[in-house]
C-alpha cells in the first residue's frame, strides 16, 4: 500500500521539559494541512541512519490547518525515533509526515468526558480540550506528571480551560488515583472515560474504574506504543519466493520487511490498528500487539509485524510473496 506523505517544515522547536521537545510543523508550499478529529496522530518519518516511522499525537486544535504541533518525550531505551526527533531535527528542516489518522476519537454520544493523562500522554487531550470546549461538552482533565513545576503543556491547558484541568504533581500517581476514586464514583450516566499515559498508570486507572462499576464500553485507551520488553535478532523467511531476511535487535519486523522492499500495509505501527496483520506459515511469533484476540494469538496463524517478533531465532515463515 502506497502511503501518501505530506512535506512539512519545522517552524519551531523548543523544550517543554528537559526530555520533551515540541515541534511546530507547517506546510512547505503554503497549502493548508488537513483538518483532523480530536485524538488524531501523524506518523513522522524521522531521519537518521536507520530512518524510523513514529506515531505522535497532534497537540493542537483540530482546525489548526496552518500548523501542526507534536510533543515528543525522549526515550533513550526506545528504538531511536524519539532520540532522532531530539537530536537530528532542527528548525527549517523538511520532514515527511503521513496524514492524520485517529484511533482515539472522543465518543460522540458522551454527555461528559473524564480525561486522564499521565506525563506525555497529555498530548492527545490538547485537541480534545479545544474541540470539547468549542462544542460546549462537559469535560474534566486529570493530569499527573513527574515535573515538580508542572508537566508539559499544563500552563497552556490551564489557560485554555481553567475549570476543567486538575493537576497532580506526583510521579507515583497515587494522588491521581485517590482523586479518581471519588470522581469515578459519582459521575452521571453518559460519562465516558479516556486515558492516555504510561502502561502501569493506565492499567491502574482501568482497574479502579472496573472496581467502581465502569463497563468496558465506557473506557477508552490510547497506549503510547507497546512497551515491548527485550528484543533479540531473528530470521524470517518469505513463503512466496523463499527469501530469508534477518531482523536486527534494533529494528522491527515491519521495518526489516520494508527495508527488503516489501509493501506491507500499515497504519499505526504500534500494534493497535490491525492493518499490518500478516499470515504465519511456520514458526512461533512472540506476540506483542493489542489487536489479535487471545484465540488468534494462540493459533499462531497471524503476526503483527509492527511490534511482534519471533519466539526464538526463527525462522518465522510469513505468508508474503
Amino acid at each position, binding site marked *: 500500500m502506497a502511503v501518501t506523505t505530506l512535506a512539512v517544515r519545522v517552524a519551531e522547536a523548543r523544550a517543554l521539559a528537559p526530555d520533551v521537545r515540541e515541534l511546530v510543523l507547517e506546510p512547505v508550499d503554503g497549502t493548508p494541512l488537513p483538518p483532523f478529529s480530536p485524538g488524531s496522530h501523524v506518523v513522522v518519518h524521522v531521519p537518521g541512519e536507520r530512518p524510523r516511522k513514529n506515531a505522535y499525537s497532534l497537540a493542537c486544535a483540530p482546525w489548526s490547518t496552518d500548523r501542526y504541533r507534536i510533543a515528543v518525550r525522549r526515550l533513550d531505551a526506545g528504538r531511536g525515533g524519539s532520540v532522532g526527533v531530539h537530536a537530528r531535527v532542527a528548525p527549517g528542516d523538511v520532514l515527511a509526515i503521513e496524514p492524520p489518522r485517529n484511533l482515539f476519537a472522543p465518543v460522540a*454520544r458522551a*454527555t461528559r468526558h473524564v480525561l486522564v493523562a499521565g506525563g506525555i500522554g497529555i498530548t492527545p487531550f490538547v485537541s480534545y480540550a479545544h474541540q470539547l470546549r468549542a462544542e460546549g461538552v462537559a469535560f474534566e482533565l486529570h493530569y499527573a506528571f513527574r515535573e515538580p513545576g508542572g508537566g508539559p503543556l499544563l500552563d497552556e491547558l490551564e489557560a485554555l480551560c481553567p475549570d476543567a484541568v486538575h493537576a497532580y504533581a506526583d510521579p507515583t500517581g497515587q494522588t491521581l488515583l485517590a482523586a479518581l476514586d471519588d470522581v*469515578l*464514583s*459519582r*459521575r*452521571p*450516566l*453518559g*460519562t465516558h472515560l479516556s486515558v492516555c499515559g504510561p502502561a502501569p498508570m493506565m492499567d491502574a486507572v482501568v482497574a479502579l474504574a*472496573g472496581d*467502581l*462499576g*465502569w*463497563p*468496558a*464500553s*465506557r473506557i477508552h485507551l490510547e497506549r503510547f506504543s507497546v512497551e515491548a520488553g527485550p528484543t533479540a535478532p531473528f530470521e524470517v523467511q518469505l513463503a512466496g519466493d523463499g527469501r530469508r531476511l534477518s531482523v536486527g535487535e534494533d529494528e522491527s519486523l515491519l521495518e526489516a520487511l520494508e527495508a527488503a522492499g516489501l509493501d506491507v500495509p500499515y497504519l499505526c505501527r504500534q500494534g493497535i490498528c490491525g492493518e499490518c496483520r500478516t499470515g504465519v506459515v511456520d514458526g512461533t511469533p512472540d506476540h506483542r500487539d493489542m489487536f489479535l484476540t487471545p484465540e488468534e494469538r494462540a493459533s499462531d496463524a497471524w503476526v503483527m509485524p509492527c511490534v511482534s517478533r519471533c519466539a526464538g531465532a526463527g525462522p518465522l515463515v510469513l505468508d508474503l510473496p
Partner: protein
Amino acid sequence: MQTAPSSPVGVSERHTTVPAPSTLQPDPNGRAHLIVAAPGGRPVADLVAALHGPVEVLVGCDDEPGELEAALRERLAQASVGLRLYVAGSEGLVRRVTRLALEAGMERDEIHTEVTASAARPVWCTHCKAITPDVSTTLVRCDGCGRTLEVYHHFSRRHGAYMGFQADAELPGDLPEAQTRWP
C-alpha cells in the same frame, strides 16, 4: 419461552442489531442495580438475592407505560455510572425501557433483559416513522399511515423497534400471507 430469531440467510448473528434471546443474570461488576419488572412477569426475587450493593425495583404495567417511563427517567437522571439495569417483561416493555435507558446515557453492556411475556414487537414504519406496538404477525397495518407493513429482520436500537416497510410496494395488492410469529 422465546424462540430464536429467524435470521434470513446471510445475516450474521454476531453483527446484527436484532436482539438475541437473553436471560437475566446478576452482574457482579455493577455497584448499584435497578430492576424493572412487569406484574405477572418473571419473579425477580432470586435476582435480587444474588445482587451485591443497593438494589431498587420498579414495577411497571404494560397498560400505563407512561407512568413507568416517567419514573425511570427521573431515577436515571439521578444515577451515577456503575448502575446496572435489569428489565423483565414483554418484548414491547423490554425494548421501550432499553431505548429510554440508552437515551439516558446507559451503555448496552449495562442493560440486561429477558422477555418473559408476550413476544409481540414494536414496529417502526419506514414511510411515516410511526411505531406500531405489539405486533405478533408478519404483516401489520401501520398505526400511522395505514400501509400494510412487512415486519423485517432489522432492529433499530435508537427507535427500540423493528423495521416495517410497505409489503406490496413492488406490485400493489400482491401481499404475502400473514403469519403469527411473535405471540
